[in-house]
């Protein structure tokens, strides 16, 4: 369920590091907690975000959740499909419904995040 090559945060974000680029999204657990997603608020291309700071939010009908940046970097791309189809976050949160791509300032930051196994254990304990 949780891709092995991704790293995960306690706030339920994932990051896929490929060289100097990071792709960021929210986990399946997060989308399940939120319910039907109606809107995604993303930063502008060019924004520089630090690890741990909010990069935007995801909304369901009755809740809003901030999305925290797992690793520092500069936004190079935002997912164009989400404006029209926010519901894809419910169906494919780890794949087609990625949120942003960053040019990483320190790719090594990802090492301190959780592995897929650790994350599964973490959410298992939360329940």
């Amino acid at each position, binding site marked *: 369920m949780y891709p092995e090559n991704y790293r995960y945060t306690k706030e339920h974000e994932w990051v896929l590091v490929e060289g100097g680029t990071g792709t960021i999204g929210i986990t399946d657990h997060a989308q399940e907690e939120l319910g039907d997603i*109606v*809107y995604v*608020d993303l930063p502008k291309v060019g924004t520089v975000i630090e690890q741990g700071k909010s990069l935007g939010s995801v*909304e369901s*009908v*009755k*809740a*809003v959740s901030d999305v925290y940046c797992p690793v520092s970097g500069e936004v190079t791309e935002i997912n164009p499909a989400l404006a029209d189809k926010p519901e894809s976050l419910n169906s494919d949160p780890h794949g087609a419904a990625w949120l942003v791509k960053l040019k990483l300032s320190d790719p090594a930051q990802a090492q301190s995040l959780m592995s897929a196994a650790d994350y599964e254990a973490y959410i298992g304990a939360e329940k």
Partner: protein
Amino acid sequence: MRYLPKSDSERRQMLDACGVSSAEELFAHLPEAVRIQKPLALAPGISEYEIVQYFRDRAAENANGYASFLGAGVYNHYRPVLVDTVVSRGEFLTSYTPYQAEISQGTLTTIFEFQTMICQLTGMDVANASMYDGSTAVPEAAMMAVRATGKGRVLVARSVHPEYREVLRTYAKHQGMPVEEFGYVQETGAIDLEDLERKMDGLTASVIVQSPNFFGIVDQVKAAAEIAHKNGALLVVIFTEAVSWGLVEPPAEADIVAGELQSFAISPSYGGPYAGIIATKEKYLRQVPGRLVGQSLDSRGKRAFCLTLATREQHIRREKATSNICTNQALIALMATVFMTVYGKEGLRELALQNLSKAHYLAGRVKPRFSGPFFNEFVARVEGKSPDEWNKALLKKKIIGGLPLGRFYPELADSVLLCATEMTKGSDMDLLAEVAK
């Protein structure tokens, strides 16, 4: 007491079920130190008759049977009979905010119609379900512009209602939102575009103008829009006289239109309750404060309405909400909706034309001070008489004259603001002019 539907025997039964022997025991857990020390110093309850009498006596101490030439943000317009008939229905009067859509379709449908009519009147794409009033809609619009542009400064015209500007300042002070004013042209009463240009900068989030402005002048909205947009600011157009929408071209160049609907069958009622609105372009939708009603389907596939985009609001977003507003002015907005339905497309235009004609007749008798085009209000002064002298003489004839402007504009201390609506009699206007001589 007639509003407490329990008999003593029922109370005894309920207290038994609660496991207490007296009602006082229900409060036994309160610390002695917080309990009230003596009964409230308020007289015992009185009968319906006495209550009505009390308020009738107070009403008699107010103006009764006076003709009035006051406007300045609150207007005397006829209230169609249907308005109170509709809002007096218990289903509208005593219902709650429509959070439970299945049993609130009456309220939700009328709000959806209201939102639509406001868009039709103002030329905007989306309107909310009401703000407290026109004066608080101004800072809400200013804060919206800050959210939308990411900039912090506000430029507001002096010809915006003085009390509206006061409210703006109270809100702006603690938002880190600097507010600066720009003036009006002495001769025309319209905004001073040069002054606006001079004071404009790249840090300004919004330029706020009113049209018709406080002096009644239909203002230079297009030109103000150009200056604002050139510098990356939004144009906010305020209105206080909603009837003007029957005739005056809506400001297509505005980014936000905000104002007051009191003219639409809302009693002047010594200052409130009224109903404000905020309307804007599609792209600023998510920055709009207050409630929004949207169209959807129910599970059986029938059209149904519900509150929507609630994630902007305080009960979800809390400290990051677009506003702290919760209770708004739903019943008042319903009055406006009925008014707009009764007058309709032709009626609102005819009503506006009547207002225009009455005020221009008056202007033929008492010369306007400003040369700009005006709707149903204008500024005037009288040779050899101060506003107070003029108004004193008018009161003797049971006429309340125009608002002396000295309290708001020292440079206009010799002038008054006169308003004539469809309810103003030609004979009273003649009398006002007579007394001016």
